[in-house]
C-alpha cells in the first residue's frame, strides 16, 4: 500500500482549526480585552505572573502547541484564500505564509526556552 503523509498533515490542520474554534475567542478576550475593558484586574497579566506561569514546562508545551497548530492552520488557509482572491502565484503565497508560520514557530519556541533564569 502506498504510504502517504497526508493523514498526518491533515490531522495537524484539523487540529489547528479545532483548537482555534475552542479557545481562540477566549484567548483574545483574556490577553487583549479583559483588562482594558475591566473584566479582569489589571495585574492579571503582570510580568511576574505571566513569567511565573510560563516557567512551568507543561505551560510552555501547551502554549507552544497552541501557537504551532493554530498558526500553521491559519497559514494554510491564507495560502488557499490568496488563490481564491486572484493571487495565482502559489509558490510565492506558500513562501510567504508558510515562511511566516515557520518563523513564528521558531521565535515562539526560542522565547519560551529563554524564559528560565538568566536569559
Amino acid at each position: 500500500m502506498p504510504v502517504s503523509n497526508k493523514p498526518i498533515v491533515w490531522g495537524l490542520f484539523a487540529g489547528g482549526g479545532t483548537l482555534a474554534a475552542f479557545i481562540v475567542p477566549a484567548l483574545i478576550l483574556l490577553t487583549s480585552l479583559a483588562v482594558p475593558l475591566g473584566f479582569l484586574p489589571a495585574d492579571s497579566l503582570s510580568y511576574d505572573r505571566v513569567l511565573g506561569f510560563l516557567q512551568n514546562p507543561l505551560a510552555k508545551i501547551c502554549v507552544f502547541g497552541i501557537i504551532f497548530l493554530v498558526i500553521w492552520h491559519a497559514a494554510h488557509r491564507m495560502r488557499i484564500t490568496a488563490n481564491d482572491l486572484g493571487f495565482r502565484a502559489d509558490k510565492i503565497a506558500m513562501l510567504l505564509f508558510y515562511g511566516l508560520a515557520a518563523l513564528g514557530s521558531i521565535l515562539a519556541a526560542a522565547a519560551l526556552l529563554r524564559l528560565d533564569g538568566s536569559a
Partner: protein
Amino acid sequence: MSRQPYVREVPRVTWWLKQPRYIRYMMREISAALIGTYILIVIVGLVRLSQGQAAYEAFLGAVWSQLGVTFSIIALLFALYHSYTWFQVTPMAMPLRLAGKRVPGAVIVAAHWLGFAVASTGLLALARG
C-alpha cells in the same frame, strides 16, 4: 466545437461579492487572517516577555491601546465566526452513531458549544487565579 465558445466572465478578485453564500465563505476565510495575525501578536508578546519587564509592559501598552483593542474586538468577532462555522460542520465531518442510532446533528453541534463554554470559562478562571 463551436466557433465562439461561450466563456463565462468571472471577476478574478471580486467573484465572492456576487452571492451571500460566497461572502460568508470569504468572511470565514478572512477569520484565518485575523486569527493568524493575533497569534503573531502573541508571539511578539512572548519575545518581549523574554526581553524583560520594560519590554513586556511596552508590548501590553500597545495591545491595550485604542488601536489594539479595536483590532482585538474585530479579531474576536471573526474568531467566533470561525468557531460557529467549525462547529456547524461537525455533524458532517464526524457523524456519530450511538446504540445503532444516528445522533442528531444539532446534538453534536450543541456538545461542541458546551465544550467551548467549558474551555473558555476554564481559561478565564485560570487567568483570574
